[in-house]
């Protein structure tokens, strides 16, 4: 479903991705960890089409997407900084990506514990609530590819477990390939046995973690 081969990227004169190869099959979840500045978010942005790789190929659903605009890739994306549009309500934010999302917006907000805040704007909710709304936006359209950039940060421990369970539920229901960036190994262990560490521009599979 997601296939990366030989991805290279240099930022500020430093090679952050140096020939990254990765395959994520349908229904599979892969976690990327690594130190700050290791290039995890950059890799996610390359898959989303927000940045171009200097070298290498990105294939989604078996198709090379080099010339495909970001929205044509049909992705559910959660950004590191939430990126909720401040002039739209939470419901309008979640419903943004089309008819499918519009139909499920309230349902997703309810699942995120934000049903009563649906009419509020992002500036009127807490950081944790904004984070959950951003997750609802990423999941609302039931895309078959999910890109999640540290979706559980800023959440209370109980909420983290609940949101992680929700992501897995949605991912299984849609049979989605999920690429999940996690800053710490503890968060990664909540999710999947397939954990990769990005260091020195290269990906290495970490020892499997049995839950």
């Amino acid at each position: 479903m997601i296939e990366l081969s030989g991805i290279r990227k240099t930022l500020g004169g430093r090679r952050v991705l140096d020939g990254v190869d990765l395959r994520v099959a349908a229904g599979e979840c892969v976690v990327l960890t690594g130190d700050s500045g290791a290039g995890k978010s950059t890799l996610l942005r390359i898959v989303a089409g927000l940045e171009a790789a200097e070298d290498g190929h990105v294939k989604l659903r078996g198709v090379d997407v080099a010339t495909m605009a970001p929205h044509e890739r049909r992705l559910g994306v959660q950004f590191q900084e939430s990126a909720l549009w401040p002039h739209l309500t939470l419901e309008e934010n979640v419903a943004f990506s089309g008819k499918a999302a519009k139909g499920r917006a309230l349902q997703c907000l309810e699942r995120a514990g934000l049903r009563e805040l649906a009419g509020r704007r992002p500036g009127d909710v807490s950081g944790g609530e904004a984070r959950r709304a951003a997750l609802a936006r990423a999941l609302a359209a039931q895309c078959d590819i999910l890109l999640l950039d540290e979706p559980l940060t800023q959440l209370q421990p109980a909420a983290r477990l609940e949101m992680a369970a929700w992501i897995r539920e949605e991912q299984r229901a849609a049979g989605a390939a999920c690429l999940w960036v996690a800053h710490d190994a503890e968060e990664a262990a909540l999710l999947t046995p397939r954990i990769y560490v990005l260091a020195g521009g290269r990906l290495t599979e970490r020892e499997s973690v049995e839950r």
Partner: protein
Amino acid sequence: MAGWLPRILSGLGCVLFMALSWAPLAAWVAAAPAGDVMEGIRLAVPDARRGQVLLETVLYAAGSSALAVMIGAGGAAYCWRCSTPLAGGASAAAVAALPFPAYLHALAWLPVFAALPSRGAGWITAGWVQGLALSPMAFLLVRTSLERMDARWIDAARVFGPDRRLLARVLTPTLGGAALAAFSMAFLLTAGDPAVASLFSRNAFAMEIFADFSATHDAARALWLSTPLILVGLVALEPLRRYWPNIAQRPGGNRSMQPLAGVPYLAAGAVLTVLPVLMLLVAVLRQSWPPRAFWAAVPLSGRDALTSAGSAAAAGLIALPVSLLAGRVVWRASKLGWWWMTAPLAAPGALAGAGLIWLWNRELWWTPYGTFWMLPLAALARYLPVGILVAAAWRSRLDPALLEAAAVLGPPWQAFVKVEVPLAAPGAVVGAVAVFALALAELPATLLISPPGSGTLSLRIYNYLHYGASSSVAALSLCLMAGAGLAACIAWRIWRRLA
């Protein structure tokens, strides 16, 4: 699907910008070959007298801009993020005084200078007045630039040293770029406007162009004569290009902090800036109470006031969509594109007026020449780049993740209509109000293109000024200040509320 809608609309914005800001300037380029080229070159190279006028104009513009930046940047550094009444009052005063034309400052200072042995005539007094008039602009530009700083940096610096060290080692390096951008903008606005210098019996280079065009009505001569001033203006644009991004940074948090030492400095700046209002009030009230002069002057100039407000509103309304769409292009523009968008600022006001006359004074199916519409066209020719710069500055303050999220989650037209336009609109609104405020006080081009029966308030005040300050002039000036100040306060409020 290609994002054709945003591209078409951006292109339309650029075409409108070209038609409004570049066409009057390009007009004299078209007119130039019609004349004698050798004669043109002779005009373009200043002789000894015009060389001296040019040098004096450059020194005058540089000196008054330096004064404006000194007062404005110092005040901004002291009251940035302070929630004290004095800091709040100083910010409000700067915003309200931003659009006060320099000749109103001159009016306020004339009685003071009249008491001097030299009777106040000279470049220094003209520079003093012009510098004070432009200091609110420098204040607001630097203050906006400071918003990118995280208050924690300041807290940390204050733990380790006194405020003066903080000012020298942390704030000054940070605000240096913004101060240079403010200097550049002040220089451009001063060099192309001869009004204040003429009030103090000094001949600025832009006045040479105005006088020559008034005598000959030859747009090509105006072009050749303007060449040295345009070249100076283009050089002055470079710091604006280089340091404008310092102003257009994303805010670094909004936590307030304890006021810095230096309250007297701030108070002095605020008093100097709002002094014209106080002096004019005194002039109105001194004659009689209740102020009969005020009530007598207002009906006298009612038509002029309506023309001023109408033409400024028209300029602002036209500037709104153009700033929104063309600002989208400037935001991402290359160096060349940036020059293209801002170069009209380097042209003196009289040249824009001459170009408009050359462009429209001809047999056409319809022409704005001789109608009210020449006034907004002149204002747009001069100040549209300011509106676009403000709109572009706002855009660069937006979180790029918001636009990226829209690009990923929806088609380009939806991202443009539902996300990009609403997020960018406040900047375009502020830019349009800035154009409105500047248009309200525009003089050098208006002097040339003002149609019969459609005089503006600023024109009437300027004409009265040559007969000496009177309470009627003061009353009219207060009306103009109230209108312009109100527009500036609305714009600032929109900016602060939505930033």
